[in-house]
């Protein structure tokens, strides 16, 4: 492990070579918007919201899966990035069936919050209104693919933390969706332990508790850092995410 020095938004910062640009930026109080990233889970660069500019390259890089290099010059908040981030949220809004006003997590939704933060006021591309399925076969929980943004937090938390790997992806491109076990109703899954971690980490109203009404459900993700810390360090304490 080596300590590297780089520049983010004109500020000299240092970080370890095995950390992500996102992690280094966060440690220095630089905020980069995210959706698929969640502290305690591995990063996959699925949502592309954390894209940053790196001097000398025409490409944009997802901060969550990009490692630092000595002397790297990074910009996290340019007009170009703001435009792309808004476009990403706009595309997510247009390719799912997101009706905030009647959603169970209205007011507590990460996608909705990002729409506000990126300044998305209108969707300018045609809505696709895809025909998606809703799986209410589980005794306690519901998977509503209409509201899924394919961030794969549920897949990762189930595999990495619970160890059950009930969820995975099926299909490609626009046909891609989250499935349980061998693409069967969730209620018939043999691997699911009904732990509910996927419900809590889902950033939208795609995975919810049964019986909840409009705006009623609030996702709490703090449990994840607690469990991960306990498992890795054998310390059963609440960890403030700003520490380290």
């Amino acid at each position, binding site marked *: 492990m080596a300590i590297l020095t780089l520049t983010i938004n004109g500020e000299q910062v240092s970080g370890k070579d095995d950390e992500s640009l996102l992690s280094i930026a966060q440690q220095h109080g630089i905020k980069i918007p995210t959706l698929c990233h969640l502290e305690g889970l591995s990063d996959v660069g699925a949502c592309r919201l954390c894209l940053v500019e790196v001097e000398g390259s025409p490409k944009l890089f997802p901060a969550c899966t990009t490692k630092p290099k000595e002397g790297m010059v990074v910009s996290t908040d340019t007009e170009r990035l703001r435009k792309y981030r808004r476009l990403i949220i706009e595309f997510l809004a247009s390719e799912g069936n997101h009706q905030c006003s009647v959603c169970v997590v209205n007011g507590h939704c990460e996608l909705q919050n990002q729409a506000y933060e990126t300044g998305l006021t209108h969707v300018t591309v045609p809505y696709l209104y895809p025909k998606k399925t*809703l799986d209410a*076969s589980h005794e306690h929980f519901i998977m509503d693919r209409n509201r899924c943004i394919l961030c794969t937090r549920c897949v990762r938390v189930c595999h990495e933390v619970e160890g059950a790997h009930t969820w995975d992806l099926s299909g490609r491109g626009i046909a891609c969706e989250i499935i349980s076990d061998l693409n069967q109703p969730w209620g018939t899954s043999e691997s699911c332990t009904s732990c509910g971690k996927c419900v809590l980490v889902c950033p939208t109203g795609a995975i919810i508790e049964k019986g909840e009404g*409009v705006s*009623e459900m609030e996702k709490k993700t703090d449990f994840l850092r607690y469990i991960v810390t306990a498992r890795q360090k054998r310390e059963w304490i609440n960890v403030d995410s700003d520490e380290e």
Partner: protein
Amino acid sequence: MSKTITISPVTRIEGHAKITIHLDDRGNVIDARFHVNEFRGFEKFCEGRLMWEMGGITSRICGICPTSHLITSAKAGDDILAVAIPETAEKLRRLITLAQWIQSHALSFFHLSSPDFLLGFDSDPATRNIFGLVAKDKDFARRGIRLRKFGQEIIEVLGSRRIHTPWAVAGGVREPFDSAKRDHLLGWIPEAKETAQIALKTLRSIHEKFAADIPNFGNFRSMFVGLVAPDGALEYYDGALRVMDGSGNIIADKIDIHKYADYFGEASESWSYLKFPYYKPLGYQKGMYRVGPLARVNICDYIDTPLAEQERRVFKALAGDAGAVNNSFYYHFARLIELLFAVEKAEMLLNDPAMLGADIRARAMINRRMGIGASEAPRGTLFHKYEVDENGVLQKVNLIIATAQNNLAMNRTVHQLAIQYIDGNKITEGILNRIEAGIRCFDPCLSCSTHAMGQMPLHVQVIDVEGKVVSERIR
């Protein structure tokens, strides 16, 4: 040469509609129709959604009476969960239902209808609205606006927001009540009661002033349908259905709401998106019935609040030998009686210690595959019927909206007014407004989000058989 007169859009109602009047070659009215030209599709697109979401989704049907949809949806949900909700939850739901009546009835009378009566049917349409009313009688208009605010305030105190609160859920309600909120709402009661009484007094003078016009405002016998309490009292939240004929005879009583489909059918016409419900035993057209204030005050045996009961007796006396009050103009009177009742009843509920209970929600899963909820929305009986699978996913949805049940009667009213006032050659602003006012008696809620304040253009065309516009009026 036959002609068609079109009034589009109809103003100062909730929603979009037009009226067409068909004349024969001598200028006599041969037909008149009330068309609802907007399409919503809620019943279809709710299929595949979750039973628990329906309160939130169906309340979006309407910006005026979302609470009525919410409560009715929650009741259909209770039925699917097969639970008896806690006493506190029921009483809190009753209070919010009364609040819905207060705000909607105040809106109908003060904001939408009273400009016609206090400024005159023939007054300038540019000022024949709530703003014109403010200019003419500031205190009266202000009182009306504040009374509506009181209704909205109850809804906000209970449900955290005035419009589209998701507070009532299958099994009960989400948030409890407390004594500070109660005291705040009780503070409104004296003013609200006084305003409701002033409105009734004003209406009495309107009855005198328009004595010549009133007999033509949808004056015909029809059946009346609504919920009544088990002891025959005026009901707003629960109870069973009663059917009364135009002569005041009770022809069906204590009908369990689950049996509504045995008694009521729905017909469709190609020229309107609004369905035509009818009383099945008499068939389509003959089975015309009215719901809402006129029906409710007609069918109940008594009202269990003192001031409103006094007014009900005055109302009943209007029936004379007919046995029932059949004139649609008296919707306004019945509405104001209900407004007074709602304020009195809200006071009674607010003083009930059971309102402050902590047990407000019964939790259960799917225990029935079908659930029906019914309550009295401001405009009449509202039904929600949901069929679900074992997981609570909706397979079929049927919503019977109060305004739809008045559809046949509204058409009849338009017809009657057209015959009375139109002779083919003279089409004045005042005549057209009288026809609109006939519709406004019913306070129809057509979509119910649009709120025209008399500012919308009224476009009337007289069209000959070849489709040529022979005369035109635009205001």
